[in-house]
């Protein structure tokens, strides 16, 4: 021991003279840096990393939240969710299907409305600011209040049904209300989600359109390019990356968000609007004393894995464009 101590002292003696004030300063600056990031890192370790690791562990166990210990079950929770449990697996499959339908429909529906809307908005000067503010309201108010307002107008005797009857489209009206009717519940929620995600998409398209140099379009027009060709060869290529971003954002938000489902239908009628996030939520918080917390965690991790997959696709697509 003494030998090692001696040699390390010696080493330090040798190194000491070479250690410049600059490197000591660098050490002090590093400490200052750590002090600056400390609050953020502590919060991240406790609220972020700890909870993730905890839920990963729990996803391999059965627990009801009250009993003193977890029962380790290996991959059983994942198996139950994917195929093994005769009651749960079909429910999850149904919810996954609904989630998938909503993801695709919301993303493409948003592009389909936001792109023409932004193009039109870019073509006018009068009222542009006012209209943009109005178009933005669904985004800033996204949440329970607006969902209740939608529920109100979608009631059996609500404004939507009455309006349909008034204009002679009574056959489209839903006597049970749009959200209680199995044929229309999911589609109605999708329409409301599109309504809520158009504002940001429109804003992004608008920013993209305004970034196009009008001189380029003029020059193309002088060279004899018609409106269609100008759209195809100049405008559209510039809008492709924005479209990709909007679609991926829509896929991600729809996959992760279940608030609208929770508030407006809670999965009903009879599971027609069940989605994965909602299922995980119910397994986690509304099974009283059954040991479902492990299954809830496993489902949370499956959603997380899907989100990561989407992020990888995202990165690939973005790289492909550059």
């Amino acid at each position, binding site marked *: 021991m003494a030998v090692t101590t001696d040699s390390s002292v010696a080493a330090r003696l040798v190194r000491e003279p070479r250690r410049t004030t600059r490197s000591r300063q660098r050490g002090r600056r590093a400490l200052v840096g*750590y002090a600056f990031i400390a609050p953020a890192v502590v919060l991240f370790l406790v609220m972020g990393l700890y909870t993730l690791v905890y839920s990963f562990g729990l996803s391999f166990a059965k627990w009801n939240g009250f009993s003193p210990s977890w029962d380790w079950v290996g991959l059983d929770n994942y198996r139950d969710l994917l195929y093994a449990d005769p009651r749960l697996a079909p429910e999850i499959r149904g919810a996954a299907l609904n989630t998938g339908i909503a993801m695709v429909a919301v993303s493409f529906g948003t592009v389909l409305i936001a792109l023409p809307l932004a193009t039109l908005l870019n073509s006018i000067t009068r009222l542009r600011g006012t209209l943009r503010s109005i*178009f933005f309201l669904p985004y800033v108010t996204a949440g329970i209040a607006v969902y209740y307002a939608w529920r109100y107008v979608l009631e059996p005797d609500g404004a939507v049904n009455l309006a349909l009857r008034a204009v002679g489209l009574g056959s489209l009206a839903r006597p049970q209300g749009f959200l209680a009717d199995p044929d229309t519940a999911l589609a109605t929620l999708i329409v409301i989600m599109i309504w809520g995600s158009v504002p940001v998409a429109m804003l992004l398209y608008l920013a993209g359109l305004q970034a196009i140099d009008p001189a380029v379009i003029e020059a193309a027009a002088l060279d004899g390019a018609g409106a269609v060709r100008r759209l195809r060869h100049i405008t559209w290529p510039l809008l492709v990356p924005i479209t990709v971003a909007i679609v991926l954002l829509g896929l991600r938000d729809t996959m992760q968000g279940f608030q609208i489902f929770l508030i407006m239908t809670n999965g009903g009628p009879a599971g027609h609007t069940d989605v994965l996030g909602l299922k995980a939520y119910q397994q986690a918080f509304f099974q009283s004393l059954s040991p479902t917390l492990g299954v809830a965690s496993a489902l949370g991790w499956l959603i997380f894995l899907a989100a990561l997959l989407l992020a990888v696709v995202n990165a690939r697509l973005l790289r492909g464009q550059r």
Partner: protein
Amino acid sequence: MRRIVPLLALIVYAAVSLYPFVWMVSGAFKDRLEILEGGHLIPRRPTLDTLADTWSRLHFFDYFLNSLQVTGLTVLGVLVVYSLAGYAFAMIEFPGRRVVFWFFVALLFVPSITVLLPLTILENKLGILGTHAGLILPFVNGTAPLAVLMLTNAFRAIPLDLHDAATADGAGEWRIFWRVYLPLARPTLITIGVLTAVPTWNEYVLTRVSLNDESRYTLPLALERLASGTVPSYNEIMAGSLILVVPVIVLFLALQRYFVNGLSGAVKN
């Protein structure tokens, strides 16, 4: 014609955007009897009683204050914690800087549902489940990716000469941060403040599984309890909804510029 048609199409979509809000206002100005008659947009006997009742008898004023407290402290927390971190990431060399930075950004990919359950278990252990602190801390952490990215970029965009000049004058990092960089990052700070305030004000899921004590309810939760009562009545629900959305609409209209810039910036990142 060529001018009118686009404008007309835009006005139609503006009506679509406003549709539920129009009915929200309409419902909030109807009394209990008229709301049951349903159907008509313009109240025949418009009344302020429903709003006044919801505000005072149903304690929406208290819930409003709770919402204000949670949102205000969350915004403050985000600005303090992540402007410090963003400054360090942008300006101070330290080992592990890149790794830690990317950890924060990676948080962006974690769905909130994945951490919702362990979060409540953890808060229960810490004894903060059901308190406002139990909402604020995870809300602050949830904003980390966006805030760290935007603030690091904002501090990086400030010319280094300023830092060098201040150092030459003998100022330490803290003084440079507080006196020089923070004031210059003001637009970004406001943007992040707004982008944090709006979703925090509207937050419902974590709030619902956390809060039990009615005196701590925020507006979204109060609204939900109002609607799940035995005889929910839509005029009161719409009045409550209106109380909830008006502040964010006002905030948005006042700070629209920051909002719009911030959103485009956030998505580009």
